[in-house]
């Protein structure tokens, strides 16, 4: 079978179309996973962007240990305290990072830990209070060397 010049162009256009439509689909799957994780945590409620302060470096040289901390503004009394805080990394193979469970005995809803980041991405902190409110904060961290490699 001989391939005409016209067929070559048609083939090229087809490949280009696949390349264009293929890429957003990957990004979309990532967003879907994050959205699913947010929904699972909040129970369907739309998180309010307030009260949570997420502290992360703007640029992380080593994605293997990225220091991250959060603080939630809350009276931490018996009737109004933060019960759970979850950290999500949007661009990691699996978005879950850690879930913290607080009690009024915790005194303050804040914690610091070190996490792995596979690439430059958004880190999300979600907080749930005993009064049923869900709060959120989001930070972009630029990663020079990814931390999930093998």
């Amino acid at each position, binding site marked *: 079978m001989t391939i005409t010049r016209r067929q070559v162009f048609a083939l090229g256009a087809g490949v280009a179309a696949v390349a264009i439509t293929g890429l957003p689909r990957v990004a979309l799957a990532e967003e879907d996973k994050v959205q699913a994780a947010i929904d699972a945590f909040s129970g369907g409620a739309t998180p309010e962007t307030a009260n949570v302060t997420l502290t992360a470096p703007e640029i992380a040289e080593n994605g293997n240990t990225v220091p991250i901390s959060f603080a939630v503004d809350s009276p931490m009394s018996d009737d109004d305290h933060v019960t759970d805080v979850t950290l999500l990394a949007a661009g990691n193979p699996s978005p*879950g990072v850690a879930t913290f*469970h*607080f009690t009024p005995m*915790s005194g303050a809803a804040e914690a610091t*830990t*070190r*996490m792995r980041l596979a690439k430059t991405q958004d880190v999300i902190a979600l907080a749930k209070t005993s009064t049923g409110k869900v709060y959120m904060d989001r930070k972009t961290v630029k990663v020079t060397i990814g931390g999930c*490699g093998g």
Partner: protein
Amino acid sequence: MASSKPRVKVPKTASKDEVITIKTLISHKMESGQRKDSDGNPIPRQIINKFTCDFNGKTVFSCDLEPAISANPYLEFSAKVPESGTFKFTWVDDDGSEYSTESKIAVE
């Protein structure tokens, strides 16, 4: 991995109802399950998946960890001290073993 050695930093004394900061670190490789060995076979996941801090037998703070937590997991958090007592820290490994340590605090 019996070599996991927990380290905690808790103040020795506190005033009543003071909110103190506790720092903990445990040596653990936190194998994520994403990496492959030199033959290309995936290395099975082995991480610490749960951490709990109890004060006089009552849970103050706990945490579920995922593979995205770095090796030698470090945690810093707060606790309120209503009375003298003992903090007990427990880490749970994927293989079921538990590492724990205790620290006393006195209220003046």
